[in-house]
């Protein structure tokens, strides 16, 4: 049986900050949920099922938080699912929610993803020493920095390309009232910032944020009453082993396979020509050129040229992370859903000051673990024809 059409009709997010001391975890989720429901013109009573996502439980020290959150999320008496795929969880949570509609099981699904990083310390949580092993781990930055070095060596990229991305994303965030870091940055300022995990500088790193994102995903009958539904043209998740002999850590097989399957589903043959705006998961600035290649926007070794040419700027050929992206707000569990939600806002013409004029098709992307989990979708202003 073919998939049923599904669309995003509500997008909500919190004001992301280093610490949202004014709200509990439930309050953080509800801030995003209430905005998404208001955007959709619905209340919790209209919702059939709820899908919640967040990153590792060690980040807040609450095991299975969906249990205590159930009532606050309005899930009493309804199906409640929790999804976990590390940093990609916001994306895969949205895809699971979409699949409940596409399968015809539910008509109106609410999905929410969050992280309250201020309650803990992610660097600590990702670096707990394991007996017998070498205690050289140093958080996500320490994990990804060697692979960024590999990319630079392989592609021959000039070393300032990471700074171009960081300056662009931080400056884009000035147009996003919800962003955590809202500060104009120049390439020179980024290059002058402290080297944290050489070759990654302080300003080339995402912040640690409290925040949440929520989406309302509905069937075509419900979408008919929305003035601007974002139709889902394709969804793909892929995973692979974190460590395997000769595994490509710069451009993982699962990422390439996911992108190929996604664009095939969405009927897209030339992503750079057919995607009008991309929200790509870039927690360290160098991942913009890396994922541009992996996703097929550029040939192998050509991602940095696209970035350097200005093509990924808001007025460029393929605007990337007009919202400011993960580089400007990183509530880890929510970061993937923010990419998916921002893609939906673009094709709904509802992205406000960071709207790309006339955007008709947009990509939302997330990855997680040791570049191990991938989740991506394409949304469009028009209902898919097949």
């Amino acid at each position, binding site marked *: 049986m073919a998939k049923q059409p599904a669309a995003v009709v509500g997008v909500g997010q919190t004001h992301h900050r280093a610490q*949202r001391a004014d709200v*509990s975890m439930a309050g953080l989720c509800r801030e995003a949920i209430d905005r998404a429901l208001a955007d959709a013109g619905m209340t919790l009573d209209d919702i059939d099922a709820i899908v919640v996502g967040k990153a590792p439980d060690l980040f807040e020290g609450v095991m299975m938080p969906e249990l205590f959150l159930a009532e*606050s999320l309005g899930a009493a008496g309804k199906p409640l699912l929790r999804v976990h795929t590390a940093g990609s969880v916001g994306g895969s949570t949205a895809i699971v929610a979409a699949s409940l509609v596409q399968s015809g099981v539910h008509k109106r699904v609410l999905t929410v993803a969050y992280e309250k990083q201020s309650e803990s310390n992610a660097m600590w949580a990702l670096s707990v020493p394991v007996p017998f092993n070498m205690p050289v781990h140093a958080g996500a930055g320490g994990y990804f920095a060697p692979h960024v070095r590999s990319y630079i060596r392989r592609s021959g990229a000039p070393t300032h390309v990471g700074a171009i991305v960081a300056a662009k994303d931080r400056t884009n965030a000035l147009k996003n009232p919800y962003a955590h870091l809202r500060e104009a940055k120049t390439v020179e300022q980024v290059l002058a910032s402290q080297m944290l995990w050489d070759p990654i500088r302080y300003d080339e790193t995402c912040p640690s944020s409290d925040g949440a994102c929520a989406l309302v995903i509905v069937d075509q009958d419900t979408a008919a009453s929305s003035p601007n539904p974002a139709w889902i043209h394709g969804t793909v998740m892929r995973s692979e082993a974190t460590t395997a002999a000769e595994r490509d850590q710069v451009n993982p097989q699962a990422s390439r396979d996911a992108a190929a399957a996604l664009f095939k589903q969405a009927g897209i043959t030339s992503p750079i020509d057919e995607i009008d705006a991309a929200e790509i998961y870039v927690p360290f600035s160098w991942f913009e050129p890396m994922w541009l290649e992996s996703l097929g926007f550029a040939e192998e070794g050509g991602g940095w040229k696209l970035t350097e040419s200005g093509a990924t700027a808001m007025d460029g050929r393929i605007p990337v992370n007009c919202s400011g992206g993960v580089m400007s707000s990183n509530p880890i569990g929510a970061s993937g859903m923010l990419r998916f939600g921002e893609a939906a806002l673009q094709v709904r013409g509802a992205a406000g000051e960071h709207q790309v004029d006339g955007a008709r098709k947009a990509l939302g992307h997330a990855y997680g673990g040791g570049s191990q989990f991938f989740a991506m979708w394409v949304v469009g202003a028009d209902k898919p024809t097949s």
Partner: protein
Amino acid sequence: MSRTLSAPVTVAFDYTRSTGPVLGRFLTGLRDGVVVAGRTSDGQVVVPPPEYDPVTHAALEDFVEVSSEGTVTSWTWVPEPVKHQPFDRPFAFALVTLDGATRPLLHALDVASPDEVSTGMRVRIRWAEERVGAITDIACFEPSDSPAPDPAAPLVAPAGAVDPVTGIVVPVSLDYTYAASPEESAFYRGLAEGRILGQRCPTCGKVYVPPRAACPSDGTPTAEEVELSQTGTVTTFCIVNVPFLGQRITPPYVSAYVLLDGADIAFLHLILDCPADEVRMGMRVKAVWKPREEWGTTIENISHFAPTGDPDADFDTYKHHL
């Protein structure tokens, strides 16, 4: 000798919770010696107050003060308390409906034997000597002689909170026993003899170090042991300049992927004996061991890797390991 090695691990952190306005109001009340309940749209009076109304889903804003005395509605006996429970002697956990509330609160009841507990018994709060705005401000419940008020006292709003509680610290400490797999255990025992042991996958022929129980690519169990060279190539690396909580090596240090000669996968280790900014992709390195009397069954027997001084490996020899 056990087939596998194991070691204790403690994962501990003091989590800093934001309470939000509703639970903050409840905890502020406890600090001030008052129990604050929430009145929901269906007329229930609930302790602690729920953050959102179960019917309307609106944020709860109707707070009322309830009594510090109440009635046990159910209970269970705890004959052997464990660490972090309210008492180190036997006690009861009881559901207590405070006078004025319609829903019970779970807490400890301090009595000497289960014969002293019954459903319907009257109890009162024993406040902690020092109150800080946490659920432990209620030290426990204790038996009370005073009957339930008849008629019930009218519910009143609590006095305005001064310097409200907005956060709590929640220390969490989990003790685990980490167990290495049989294959890893053989690897660590090899290190205790000064040897680096890997295993070859019988299907794809790749040599894994440390060895896995099964090849990550094709799932085949691995059995053939391979002793590896003590020299290898730095495939890629980063220089860690950032200090962080729990860090065991003082920054700056070079965390590098070392591909041992004869292995098909690199592992992370430390590079020393040369300035960090002279470490290169392709640099040839050798294992430097700690003095033998310091060895255990750990990869930390290898203090670090140091440059051999040989010419760098050609990029083509390791580029497929990035």
